[in-house]
């Protein structure tokens, strides 16, 4: 059996000492997991290593750590794969997840961050209908849609590497927002509007996500939290036209209108429009604050006054027509690859391809399109 060296980050806040790295070499099969290796080190060499684990089968979500700097479950990461991904000639590094305080060694305080955020989004179904005699009937597509966020095992990997949370710890974050979509997207829930309104009114809510895709790559269960956040935004901004605290909805609408008019983005218009328009009281302080940046850009010839004021490029009429047709549909058309699958990969099982926004109502789901 080959040797694998783990470089484990150790930290005991009670000791008063700084965190440090410690190397341990174990002889194990290539397909053993990083968790098994840690437990072997713990059993044979140093019982004081702190690691949280339970099921060892990627179900309980307890053993979230960073392996070679990337978040994941120690129990479903094979040693050979981890060794391949380590820096050349370097051991496999194992450290606690980020964005959460470390309790000891590889154990982070999930209560302080993750669970607090989950509780924030009312993580249960709000039902107003009388309880049916038998089970609730939910259309298949709706169920598959929310199944993606239900696949979350609360391991915290996405929270660990959320780049918005890194600079703004108040951000609700990817796990909790994915959980929010699990109920917003569920046709049995009676308060999708209230839920979205609540998230939009939170200064660190719906529009704090910066599209970095880290959570999508971090998730060991394919939840794609960022995709769920984008679904929440489509529902809030487009379907319900909920104005948020952070100019998110205004920015989105300003951007869409800007492209409809110009075909190519006219940046100088986008900024004031994102705050409600050049003459809007909200825009004035923002524009004044941006003046030094704009003046500098002009001084450098990056932006000319003509370019700032006028925009030579105008959208061709065919592009304007595309906006009119699609924005004019009574319901949005959306392809959810989680529901439909990929033709080449799974041609036989492909579900109805084109569906309206999945959670609108049971009737709309199977509609192909609204032309």
């Amino acid at each position, binding site marked *: 059996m080959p040797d694998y060296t783990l470089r484990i980050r150790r930290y005991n806040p009670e000791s008063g000492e700084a965190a440090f790295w410690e190397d341990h070499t174990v002889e194990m099969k290539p397909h053993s997991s990083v968790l098994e290796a840690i437990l072997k080190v713990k059993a044979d060499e140093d019982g004081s290593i702190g690691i949280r684990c339970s099921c060892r089968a990627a179900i309980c979500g307890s053993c979230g750590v960073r392996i070679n700097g990337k978040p994941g479950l120690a129990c479903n990461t094979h040693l050979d794969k981890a060794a391949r991904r380590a820096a050349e000639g370097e051991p496999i590094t194992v450290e606690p997840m980020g964005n959460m305080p470390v309790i000891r060694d590889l154990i982070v305080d999930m209560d302080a961050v993750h669970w607090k955020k989950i509780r924030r989004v009312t993580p249960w179904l709000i039902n107003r209908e009388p309880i049916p005699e038998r089970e609730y009937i939910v259309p298949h597509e709706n169920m598959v849609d929310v199944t993606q966020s239900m696949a979350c095992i609360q391991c915290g990997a996405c929270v660990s590497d959320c780049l918005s949370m890194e600079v703004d710890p108040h951000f609700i974050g990817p796990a909790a927002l994915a959980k929010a979509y699990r109920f917003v997207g569920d046709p049995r829930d009676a308060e999708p509007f209230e839920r979205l309104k609540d998230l939009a009114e939170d200064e660190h809510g719906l*529009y704090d996500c910066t599209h970095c895709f880290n959570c999508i790559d971090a998730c060991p269960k394919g939840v794609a939290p960022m995709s769920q956040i984008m679904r929440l935004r489509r529902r809030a901004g487009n379907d319900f036209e909920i104005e948020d605290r952070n100019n998110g909805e205004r920015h989105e609408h300003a951007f869409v209108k800007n492209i409809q008019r110009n075909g190519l983005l006219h940046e100088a218009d986008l900024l004031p429009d994102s705050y409600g328009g050049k003459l809007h009281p909200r825009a004035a302080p923002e524009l004044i604050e941006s003046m030094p940046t704009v003046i500098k850009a002009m001084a450098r010839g990056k932006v000319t006054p003509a370019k700032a004021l006028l925009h030579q490029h105008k959208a061709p009429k065919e592009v304007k027509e595309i906006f009119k047709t699609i924005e004019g549909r009574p319901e949005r058309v959306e392809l959810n690859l989680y529901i439909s699958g990929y033709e080449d990969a799974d041609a036989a099982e492909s579900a109805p391809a084109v569906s309206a926004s999945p959670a609108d109502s049971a009737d709309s789901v199977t509609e192909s399109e609204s032309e």
Partner: protein
Amino acid sequence: MKVAYWPGCVSRGFTPELHGSMAKVAPLLDLELIELDRAACCGAGVIAEHNQELADTLNARTFALAQLTDGELMMNICSTCQGAQSECQERLDANTEYREHVNANLAAESLSYEKGLTNKNFLWLLVEEIGLETLKAKVKRPLTNLRVGPFYGCYIVRPADRLGVDAEHPRDRYLHMVIEALGGTVIDYAGVYKCCGFPIVTMNKHASLTMAGRHLGDAIDAEADCLVVPCPLCHLNLDLQQPAASKVVARELGMPVLHLPQLVGLALGLEPKELGMSKHVVRPTAVIDWSSSVVAGAA
């Protein structure tokens, strides 16, 4: 090599030096650019979060226009375009019925997107089509002793599956590889794969500029001379907004940020001025001084 060329919006808007430098560098790499001047904005992820069909249709139109040219593939110079377009293309290629539905939106122009377009950012094209050996052979002024920090940003490396990052195509190492091929020294620092913060600059300016400021500070701590970015939106937050970011993180910055074609052009012998470096908010003095010292050394 002939390519259908999609420059995006920002390279012709607030970072004109990107579009300009690409035009200067292309002939030196034997690249013929067929500009897609009728195509519209990729949506930058914002249109997709408003209406997915709309974003998919605008990009299907761009892809269809690219397929009308005799370019071998489509090339872009903006990571955000690459990411937004790859996302739309994934849906369009995955499902015939959906593709036909979107193509129906283009019928008025008699355009139609056919599954399977190859769309590569200039960075990918450099490594996968031109090749690092060919690139090395073209270097006239090796970036010797120039310490360059790669800044990948998000859209060109994540999600890894969609962006085709795998063992065969280590696209998350391409900036490193190009810097080395040009003779420069790669500086690794904490921000290499982080977000510049630009997408939330109008929503949460403080968080956005904290991101930019931290990465710039980390690059300074790692003693980089400059950063290189494959995305003009990253350039806006890291360069145009750098003075504002400096205030937010309460630290002097002054880190020059180059667009990828500028860095390549410099090594291929072009002058900083013709590559538009005078248009940067943070004057790339270290880079310009370096280039003149190399020229002086050669003389």
